[in-house]
């Protein structure tokens, strides 16, 4: 263990130590004053974010090639720390209002973010697996955090059982990959695979890993758990889970598939194509039938996993891949901001006992709270992909990359499903402005800040998206 090793993982190490310390400090903070814990957690995440952004020196692997620090890891880590901050901000008032305020909430959130960051830095399949567990286990607990509420317990148990099952697939895939190549390190796999002596075993291993991660990021047909878990889990948890688990899952998929398995494109491109198309179609069509806003956003998150997965379809084409992956990463940023904004609005309108979550409860919002309704409109438009929002820019980059890769059919499916999605996203807007009603909202400073800042960011960045895309591209190009 050298200084370089420690430097590579510095933000992560600081975050983990902070989380351990917070676990103990929280014991001394009396009940009812857990706001202090929230503040400390946010401070730790802010410190992590700062350290991540300050890690500008040369890229390289550390801990005997187990982890890597490069532009991509920095970009994703910064995004993840931001996700954690937004997650704390959303939870702060929410857990108190719902009577589930416990200090462990923030500790678990920190540990989960640590797992996600490790995932983005993993350069070895063993570390990928370790990170997967570290990010998942706190999420299982957080999903059941509204205990003894039955729906929340069900969400936690369902997520745990199916998640453990999916982890099994990943481990099996890693084992087969190891059997085929004799190594678990990503660079070792590239070397072994390019010799052409890996064969069928490696393909099966890669496919199994894809199944496991497909579950984590909610890709059809591994999406069954998503609506129930997203609906049952406390809304603040769902917001964090929807963004964080997706970012980390796709970051790992990118490293594993974009780099290690790039020689398998002949076998896997068709599979990825099908998964992406299926996810977009099923997610968007099932969302139409939903009357509960949490379920609607759950199906919407499935659909968006399909859009992001598009970025991986041209993964065998070395010329298109960097641009396409940059588009995927950019879309992740757009999705994260929009997602947190939309969930902040949901939280602002949610009442105890799960009331205030039907679409009908949004009636009259436009008249009574114009700013909140305007923000929700922005998020719905962004999820649809209508200007002037970040969602449109993200989809534009994605479709452009996919077309450059020669997958016209997939781009057409993407556009058509976006049209379908306009129906249910705009229905929310119509209900808010065209129907009479008396919604009651909660006004908390951090919550208001979250939706207002997200809405502003979604609109403003969409006007000048080039710098962000350039940053994402720069991060990704360092990989290849």
């Amino acid at each position, binding site marked *: *263990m050298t200084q370089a090793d420690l430097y590579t993982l510095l933000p992560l190490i600081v975050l983990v130590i902070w989380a*351990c310390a917070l*676990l*103990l400090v929280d*014991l001394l903070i009396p009940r009812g004053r857990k706001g202090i814990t929230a503040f400390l957690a946010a401070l730790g995440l802010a410190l992590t974010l700062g350290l991540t952004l300050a890690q500008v020196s040369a890229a390289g692997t550390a801990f005997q090639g187990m982890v890597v620090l490069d532009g991509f890891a920095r970009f994703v880590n910064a995004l993840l720390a931001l996700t954690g901050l937004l997650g704390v901000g959303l939870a702060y008032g929410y857990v108190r209002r719902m009577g589930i305020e416990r200090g462990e909430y923030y500790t678990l959130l920190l540990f989960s973010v640590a797992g996600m960051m490790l995932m983005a830095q993993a350069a070895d399949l063993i570390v990928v697996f370790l990170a997967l567990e570290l990010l998942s286990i706190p999420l299982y607990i957080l999903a059941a955090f509204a205990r003894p509420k039955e729906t929340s317990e069900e969400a936690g148990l369902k997520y745990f059982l199916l998640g453990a099952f999916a982890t099994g697939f990943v481990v099996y895939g890693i084992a087969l990959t190891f059997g085929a190549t004799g190594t678990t390190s990503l660079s070792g796999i590239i070397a072994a695979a390019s010799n052409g002596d890996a064969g069928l075993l490696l393909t099966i291993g890669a496919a199994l890993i894809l199944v496991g991660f497909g579950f984590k990021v909610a890709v059809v047909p591994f999406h069954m758990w998503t609506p129930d878990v997203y609906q049952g889990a406390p809304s603040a948890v769902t917001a964090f889970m929807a963004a964080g688990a997706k970012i980390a899952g796709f970051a790992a998929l990118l490293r594993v598939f974009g780099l290690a398995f790039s020689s398998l494109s002949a076998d896997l491109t068709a599979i990825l194509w099908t998964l992406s198309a299926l996810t977009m179609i099923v997610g968007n069509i099932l969302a139409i039938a939903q009357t509960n806003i949490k379920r609607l956003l759950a199906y919407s998150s499935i659909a968006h996993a399909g859009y992001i997965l598009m970025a991986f379809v041209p993964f065998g084409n070395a010329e298109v891949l960097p641009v396409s992956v940059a588009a995927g990463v950019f879309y992740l940023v757009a999705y994260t901001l929009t997602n947190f904004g939309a969930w902040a609005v949901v939280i602002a309108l949610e009442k105890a006992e799960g009331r205030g979550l039907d679409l009908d409860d949004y009636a009259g919002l436009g008249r009574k709270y114009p700013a909140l309704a305007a923000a929700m409109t922005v998020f719905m438009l962004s999820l649809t992909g209508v200007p002037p929002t970040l969602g449109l820019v993200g989809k534009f980059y994605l479709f452009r990359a996919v077309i450059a890769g020669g997958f016209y059919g997939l781009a057409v499916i993407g556009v058509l499903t976006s049209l379908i999605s306009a129906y249910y996203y705009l229905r929310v807007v119509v209900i808010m402005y065209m129907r009479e009603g008396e919604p009651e909202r909660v006004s908390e400073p951090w919550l208001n800040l979250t939706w207002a800042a997200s809405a502003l960011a979604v609109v403003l960045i969409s006007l000048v998206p080039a710098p962000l895309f350039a940053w994402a591209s720069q991060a990704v190009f360092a990989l290849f």
Partner: protein
Amino acid sequence: MLLQYIAIAILIFLSTALAGLVIVLGELFGPRVKTNVKSMPYESGMTPIGPGTRRMPVRFYLIAMLFILFDIEIIFLLPWAVVFRKLGVFGLVEMLIFILILLVGYLYAWKKGALEWE
């Protein structure tokens, strides 16, 4: 290749056969006097209380979980102790970090009252 394991195979076969033979012979030729006391389930010599499938306190599950946690600590400590001199200071520091992390969990469980039965 497989021939080097032939001794183990013979051992397994012989011991199974011998054990089976003893049981079968006992069943065939042994005298049998059935009394109530004899057909009772054996519970360390005392008279059994209640049915065999008793309800367990759910707390036991917490204890079991904590046990596994520290059991794993031991599992890691033993091999480390074997190669302690070879690993030197590096190994010592690594193990201290590992124990420190477990200590955090231990303190947390303690303070939360997970170690108390009541």
